[in-house]
């Protein structure tokens, strides 16, 4: 297997539905998605539409001053939905900041996606309620957490697996490489899911890697595969394979989902400074949603139904977001420690007294 994967790696990424919506037969991967009927594919499409719609709404909210910042996932919907939908509820996800589509599939409450970016909380949700850690902003750090968690699953004798999401830029960080060392060494049931969206802010992937990213893992003893990250079916297939390998004691895997960041790095970014519009246009022709539309040939009413659901989600998101209130000043001191800390307790009471001084 690892040979098959390695061979694919450097050459053509796995693709099951091409940019024109044409289904590509694949001996190896077709059986892995045999259960994905058109109805289920439509559900994946719906996920992607909703995720994109929320993302657009978030960008609008940022422009209106309701969010401090937002990192759009535009263009990466298939990579996120296709992989996240291949997981079991008891699997655990460690992600970076752009994985709002993954979070959506983990059933994170919409409002929870906004908290950190609105600045009302350091992060959005209870990781254990959805089995997904809140985003790691320090690039690459979460890949080690995923590895440790996976080793913990083995220790606990459960067959849950963990998935680490990270970007192409992250692959340069020591932590990501150490994660591969440790995962291989401990045969950890972890899936490294790299969304190669071609950019680390303004830096093209070529600065981070002179070979396809997926080529790196085999040298660590980790089978890898390169997949068309804009093909939700192919992403599902390779993720299922990797998750199944992990679950059945086959150890770690590495997936490079080749995709494109169609928007700015964040709402603060000005990609016109560095993105070649021709390149972007080329990638626009590989849009993950468009190809499913072509493939599925959904009726207008079906399209409208989905759009309405997406608008509803966006509306819900907006309302919840704008009604988020600022935390109490003294909550500053909460949860820094799990157990009492005399130094902090003193600081808290002094600040409380100081604030009271203003009131009286």
């Amino acid at each position, binding site marked *: 297997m690892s040979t098959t994967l390695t061979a694919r790696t450097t050459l053509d990424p796995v693709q099951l539905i091409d940019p024109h919506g044409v289904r590509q037969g694949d001996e190896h991967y077709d059986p892995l998605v045999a259960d994905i009927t058109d109805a289920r594919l439509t559900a994946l499409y719906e996920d992607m539409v909703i995720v994109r719609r929320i993302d657009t709404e978030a960008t609008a909210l940022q422009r209106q001053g309701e969010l*401090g910042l937002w990192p759009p996932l535009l263009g990466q919907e298939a990579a996120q939905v296709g992989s996240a939908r291949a997981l079991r509820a008891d699997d655990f996800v460690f992600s970076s900041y752009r994985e709002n589509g993954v979070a959506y599939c983990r059933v994170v409450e919409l409002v929870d996606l906004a908290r950190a970016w609105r600045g009302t*909380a350091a992060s959005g949700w209870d990781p254990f309620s959805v089995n997904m850690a809140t985003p790691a902003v320090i690039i690459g750090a979460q890949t080690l957490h995923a590895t440790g968690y996976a080793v913990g699953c083995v220790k606990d004798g459960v067959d849950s697996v963990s998935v680490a999401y990270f970007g192409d*830029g992250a692959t340069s960080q020591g932590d990501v490489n150490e994660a591969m060392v440790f995962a291989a060494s401990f045969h950890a049931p972890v899936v490294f899911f790299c969304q190669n969206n071609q950019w680390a802010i303004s830096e093209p992937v070529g600065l981070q890697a002179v070979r396809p990213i997926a080529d790196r893992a085999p040298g660590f003893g980790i089978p890898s595969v390169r997949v068309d990250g804009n093909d939700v079916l192919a992403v599902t297939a390779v993720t299922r394979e990797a998750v199944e390998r992990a679950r059945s004691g086959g150890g770690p895997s590495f997936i490079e989902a080749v995709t494109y960041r169609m928007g700015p790095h964040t709402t603060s970014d000005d990609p016109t400074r560095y993105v070649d519009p021709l390149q972007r246009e080329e990638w626009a022709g590989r849009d993950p949603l468009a190809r499913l539309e072509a493939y599925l040939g959904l009726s207008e009413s079906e399209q409208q139904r989905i759009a309405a659901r997406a608008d509803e989600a966006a509306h819900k998101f907006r309302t919840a977001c704008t009604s988020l209130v600022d935390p109490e000043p003294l909550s500053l001191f909460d949860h820094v420690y799990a157990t009492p800390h005399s130094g902090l307790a003193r600081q808290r009471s002094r600040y409380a007294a*100081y604030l009271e001084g203003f009131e009286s």
Partner: protein
Amino acid sequence: MSELTLSKALGSGLRRALADDDRVVLMGEDIGTLGGVFRVTDGLQAEFGTDRVMDMPLAESGIIGMAVGLAFRGFRPVVEIQFDGFIYPGFDQIVAQVAKLHARTGGKVRMPLTIRVPYGGGIGAVEHHSESPEAYFAHTAGLRVVTCATPQDAHTMIRQAIACDDPVLFFEPKRRYWTKGEVDEGYDFPLGKARVAREGTDVTLLTYGPLVPTALDAAVAASDEGISIEVVDLRSLSPVDYETVEASVRKTGRVVITHEAAEFGGMGAELAAAITDRCFFHLEAAPERVAGFDIPYPPARLEEHFLPDLDRMLDAVDRVLGRTNSLTGWTA
């Protein structure tokens, strides 16, 4: 003389350094085409080429480690760390290599690195984007640590740092990047020299970097109440210009120290301890610290409470003066 933002003043300092010495190379994430996320290096790659202004792979340890190798080869690398909170992956290379190589080799190997770090809060950012890690580096022997508060100092000091044969951690007060001020390229002073930003007689208000403007505002507000505050902008955190500090404290007998970093073990601790040691019999009251709380930098909607502001500074001023607080009516 021209009026520049602090960001542009740094950029013009970097440009001069690049032009004056062809051993100077700039290294960092997104500093080339993009000009850095704060645009400090805007236009420099176009002017000096990719050989002098290098976009680096996304790995801080790698960037600093490579800069060490370039310094071995006689270059003067200027590294940009994108935000304060991203310096930690490079901590080992800074603390174990950059700081120690000169001593390790009995002075044979020089490490004239400048590591630029946009730091501090007040910009409404998410986690890891508002930190003040200066104390870690000030506690590290072998490093120099400086920070600027005005466009003029930004320009002058970045050139001083690059010209210095020692490694310099150069902290840039990111929320002041857009502050404008006159910049005279010819102006200079010795690296490490503190600045009396405003003279006063009752209390010394000691600060640096992003809080200098706030301290000056506090001094203005206090003067309305008849309190004369002397504001000292340290500029250098390692070494500290104790000559200037002592002169001020001996005059006023009272000192308030303020910074954004967490209070416990922060620069304020060293300053308070050293001032007490050096000026014990001149002190009318214990030095007061007004600092960030001992918590991770909070979410944006709470940062106004975390950051020392005019009120908290004046509250401390009142305390060292043994006065009922003029704003809160609250006594020490």
